[in-house]
Structure formats: C-alpha cells, structure tokens
C-alpha cells in the first residue's frame, strides 16, 4: 500500500474505526513516512479545531417565535381535523340515509339541483331584464313597485234592481228615524212617482231593509239604520201609500204593507224582467192578480 492508500485510512484511524491489524500497519507506515506523519498530525489538528467550535444558540426571541409557530400549527390542525370530522360525519349520514331511503334521497337531491339550476338561470337572466326595463329611464335605481291593494274596495251599494230575485225572508220595515237618513235624494229620485205620494214632506222615501238571512243565497246584510233607497217601481203606485216610516198614523202596519205590496203590476214587472223567484212568489204567480205577496225576495 502506498501513501495515498494510507491517507484514506487516516480519518478512520483518528476516529478509532480501524481494526487492530490495520491500525498497526498504519502506525508502522507513519513511523517511516514523515510526510504522512505530518499530514495526519494536521488532520488531527483540524478535526480538533472543528470539534472545538463552540455551540451556537439561537437568539432569545427565537424561543417565543418557535412556540407561537407551533401553537398556530397545532390549532390549525385541530381546526382542520374538526372540519374533517364534520364532513366525514355528514358523508356517513348521507350514506346511511341512502341505504335507508334511497328514493327520497334521490328526489331531494334532484329537487335541490333543480332549484339551484333555476335559481342560477334566474340570476343570470335577471340583471339583463332589469337593465332592459330601466333602459328607458335615466334613473340609476329602480323605483319601488306600487303596493296594490290586497282587496278591491267594496262596491257601493246599488239600488235594488228590478231584474233580481227578491229575498225570501226580507222584511221591509219603515225607517225608525228618517231624519237620520243621510243619503240625499238625487234629482232622478226626486222625480220618481212614489216621492210625490209621500205624506210627510217632499223628500224621497227611504226604506230600511233588513234581511233575515243575511249570508244565504248571496244576500248582503244591511244593518238596521242604513238607509237604502228602494225602487218605487216595486210597489204599487196606485196603492197610494207611503212606504216611508214616520208617515201618517193611518198607514198600514209593515206586515199589512207587505201583504199589500204585491199587486198585479208588481208581478207583471217581475215577470217582465225575468225574475226567477218562483219559490218565493208561488202565490203571486198562481193565485191571480189580486193575491197579495207574503214574502218579498230581494237579491242584491
């Protein structure tokens, strides 16, 4: 072995890694080779110098930085693991649900997908429609939609039509206080014939109509005290009586009035407008012109 071969064993010799025989052979060579002896001495010095390098420590703030970093990492991992557990639990629940109720799950999934697709489609097309509608206006914002009334205002109470069927249980009674009648007479009403027959003043007659079955057969309930003009053609002009309460004391009672309302002209007029109150006026249609009406049916 030459010097280069012994040179490769020098490091092991210094570390005590050589076998006894190899170590003795190297020592024998070093005793006879001053170059290799100097080289191994320099190598040993360099090795000692490296080993003598002092241990360096990180800066004092490094401890806290490392602690903070590891704490964040632990917290992050815990957070991630908690979410992972939640997701895995949800997936397992879905799997269980799919085993128990597969049809319902498929239906629910398809429903959700449909709603999502429709919602996405509406989201895509929505702004375009809004831009088109607002293109004609220079306003940058959209005006609020006017609030439509939930219910249409009630129709005004109309006068009794002649072409309607009379209510089966209508009671016609004179208004107890005609002075409280607030509806002023119209010129047309004042020109009606019955107003000329009134005994108390020249004001139009006002009847208060109260139905006995307000909610049946489409009959509108009219509370007592509400003045409602009754078409005078319902009554016999030739009767010569005023239907307005508060008339002269000689006028007939309301029951008598009802019985005497039905005349031939009234029946003729009902027949002429095609009323269908056959049930309410059986006597009037069958018992001849002089038979009085027991009931007056008025429908609104």
């Amino acid at each position: 072995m030459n010097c280069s071969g012994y040179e490769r064993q020098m490091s092991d010799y210094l570390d005590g890694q050589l076998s006894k025989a190899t170590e003795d052979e190297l020592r024998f060579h070093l005793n006879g080779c001053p170059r290799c002896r100097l080289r191994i001495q320099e190598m040993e010095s360099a090795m000692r110098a490296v080993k003598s390098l002092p241990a360096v420590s990180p800066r004092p703030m490094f401890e806290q930085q490392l602690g903070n970093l590891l704490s964040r990492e632990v917290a992050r991992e815990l957070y991630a693991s908690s979410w992972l557990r939640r997701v895995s639990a949800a997936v397992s629940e879905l799997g269980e649900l799919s085993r128990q109720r597969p049809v319902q799950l498929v239906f629910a999934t398809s429903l959700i997908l449909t709603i999502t697709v429709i919602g996405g489609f509406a989201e895509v097309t929505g702004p375009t429609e809004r831009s088109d509608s607002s293109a004609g206006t220079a306003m940058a914002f959209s005006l609020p939609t006017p609030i439509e009334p939930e219910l249409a205002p009630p129709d005004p109470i109309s006068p009794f039509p002649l072409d309607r069927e009379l209510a089966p249980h209508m009671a016609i009674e004179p208004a107890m206080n005609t002075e409280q009648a607030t509806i002023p007479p119209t010129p047309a009403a004042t020109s009606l014939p019955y107003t000329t027959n009134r005994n108390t003043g020249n004001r139009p007659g006002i009847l208060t109509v109260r139905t006995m079955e307000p909610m049946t057969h489409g009959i509108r309930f009219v509370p007592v005290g509400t003045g409602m003009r009754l078409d005078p053609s319902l009554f016999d002009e030739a009767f010569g009586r005023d239907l307005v309460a508060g008339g002269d004391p000689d006028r007939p009672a309301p029951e008598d009035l009802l019985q005497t309302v039905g005349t031939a002209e009234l029946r003729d007029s009902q027949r002429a407008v095609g009323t269908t109150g056959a049930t309410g006026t059986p006597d009037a249609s069958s018992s001849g012109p002089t038979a009085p009406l027991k009931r007056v049916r008025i429908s609104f």
Partner: protein
Amino acid sequence: MADNTSINAVQVTDVESGVLDELTLSDEVLFVRVQREDIRAFEVIVGRYRTRLYNCIYRMVHNTECAEDLVQETFLRVYRNRHNYKAISNLSTWIYTIALNLARSELRKRKRRQFFSLNASPHENSTRESIDLPDTSAGPGDHLEQNELGRAIQYAIDQLPEKYKSVIVLRDIEELSYEEIGEILRCPTGTVKSRVNRGRLRLQEMLRQWQVEIL
C-alpha cells in the same frame, strides 16, 4: 370487571410515569405520545432538539436568520409528518434527515443565486455572520485568538463542497456515528467514511494554506 381494573391501573401508571419521567423517556417513546396527539411530549422533543438542530444548521448555512427559519420549518415538518415516522429508526436520525435536507436545499438555492447574481460576493456569508460566534474563552488574551480561529474554521467549512460539509458537520460537530450519518444522508457507511476523510483533508489543506495555527 377485572379487565377494567387492570386497564385503569395501566392508564394511571402510564399517566403518572408520563408526568414523572417525561424528561427521562427516550425520544422514540415520547414521539409515540406525540403521535397520540400529546402536545406536551412534542414540547419535550422540541426542547431536546432545538439547540442541537440550530447548531447543526447554522454550521451548514452560516446565517442566523436562515438557521432559525430552517429550524422552525424542521419542527413544523416533524409535527405535520409525525404519523409517517416509523419506530424502527432513531428519532434523531429522522429529525436530522429533515433538517439536513432543508439545509442542503438552502445551500443549493444560495449557489444558484450566487451564480446568477453579478454582484454576489463569495465571502458574503462568512463576513456577515462572523460576529455571531459566541465568546467561550476563559481570558481576554484568548478571546481574539479563539474568535479568529473559529472564524477561520467556519470559513473553511463554508468552502467545502456540500457533500463534505454535511458529513463534517454531522461527524465532528454533532458527533454522530458513521452509521447514523449514512442513514441520514442515505448512503453507505463506506461512502461516509470516505467523505469524512476527504473533508478533513480539505480542511487541513485550507488551514495550512491560510497558515492558521491550531494549538
């Protein structure tokens, strides 16, 4: 019933021994606890390896901030990959493998930066960090001598090729065995011995050229 009693007794013993012998347990036993999400055991591991890893990495990269960053990254990787550790190998070997890989990657990046940088100085690191060498001398007369010697040796280590530098640091500074170095660097023991020998010869040649006298 008897089984439950014995299990509880084992658990109590385990806990008590964990509290009492936490600092005397081996690294591998402690790391098994880390794998069972014992944060306290990981703190003990960090305390054991913090300074050793910093010293090793600092000798490799010779930069304080870079060494601190690499130590932090090493512990992060150790914690994130704790379930990949197999107890068949030493924990120190596994941790040093991670640290050395990071340090070697940093050296390669630095070499590329120096290659592409027109203004790069080859002595940038050694001159910048020379003041970080701690003072361990006994008297004022040895102060300058020790610092100068240490600076020269560190500069010589910096000049070594990466493969020799790794083995010199692991063998002469960290005092690991050839087998451990071979396991860390994933090379045969004979290769490690050869590199150690060549690295020492190169150091000796550099120190001789610089006429550094080692007492």
